[in-house]
């Protein structure tokens, strides 16, 4: 049950993610100037992407670790 709710929440989050992160481009003057995530040649965007990939891998490793721990317990 908890697993289902969690995955549903994750799906919802991923679906709504673009709404939260869409950069404000209404003001065309600000569009090409450096501010927030757009500063420094958008390096922060790249950093965020790489961090998400890293955290994804780490999360996967943690889950795998827990699974193996469970199997170890079952065998004993």
């Amino acid at each position, binding site marked *: 049950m908890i697993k289902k709710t969690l995955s549903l929440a994750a799906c919802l989050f991923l679906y709504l993610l673009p709404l939260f992160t869409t950069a404000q481009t209404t003001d065309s003057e600000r569009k090409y100037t450096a501010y927030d995530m757009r500063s420094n040649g958008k*390096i*922060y965007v*790249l*950093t965020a992407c*790489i*961090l998400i990939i*890293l*955290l994804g891998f*780490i999360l996967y*490793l*943690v889950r*795998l*670790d*827990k699974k*193996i*721990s469970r*199997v*170890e317990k079952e*065998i004993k």
Partner: protein
Amino acid sequence: MRKTWWKILCVVILIYTITGGLLLPVPAREILAETIRNLYFHVCMWFGMMILFTASVVYAIKYLRSQKLAHDIYSVNFAKVGILFGVLGYSTGFIWASYTWTEYATNTQIFKEPKLLGAAIALLVYFAYLVLRGSITDMDKRARISAVYAIFAYAMLFPTIWILPRLLESLHPGKEGNPALNFKDSDSRLRMVFYPAIIGWTLLGVWITSLKIRLDFIKEKSILND
């Protein structure tokens, strides 16, 4: 999760490596420009590979002394993850070189680059290690032969990636000594991220290895208990 503290440390250091490695200031160098940040990624792969291979050879020797199959499992899994790090180091170096060396070196120079050839040979020697293991079905024989081979493979690392590239003309930095470890040479801004990065990536490798080892223990449980 078993013994979690160093896994948390690994995650924290890696997050620091990537945020700090991409955002903190670095010395300005021509040709390299921003790719100097690859020191925290490409170079760390090779450091991680070397440390994992060292662990592998230590367990190979331990196996030969004790004849315990558990040591063989340790040895082979360290070698496997070491190979993964080596392949990642090689492919990142490939991209890095194609955008930096090509600016002043000719193709001929790149094709006969001793560091590239040496690293390729070293990795192929380790691929052969896996082929050798895969071809022997008897467990004890496999463990003994591959432990001996692991020692030879480790010994081959030194001429191929440490000695030969330093003796021959090389495009790869590091010919004049150990630039990454030389306190006078490498910039303190780089070292602030570089040293933790080595630890972080190596811990990640050890984590993956520990999972593989535990999985193998589960698989081979009946044999190990005898």
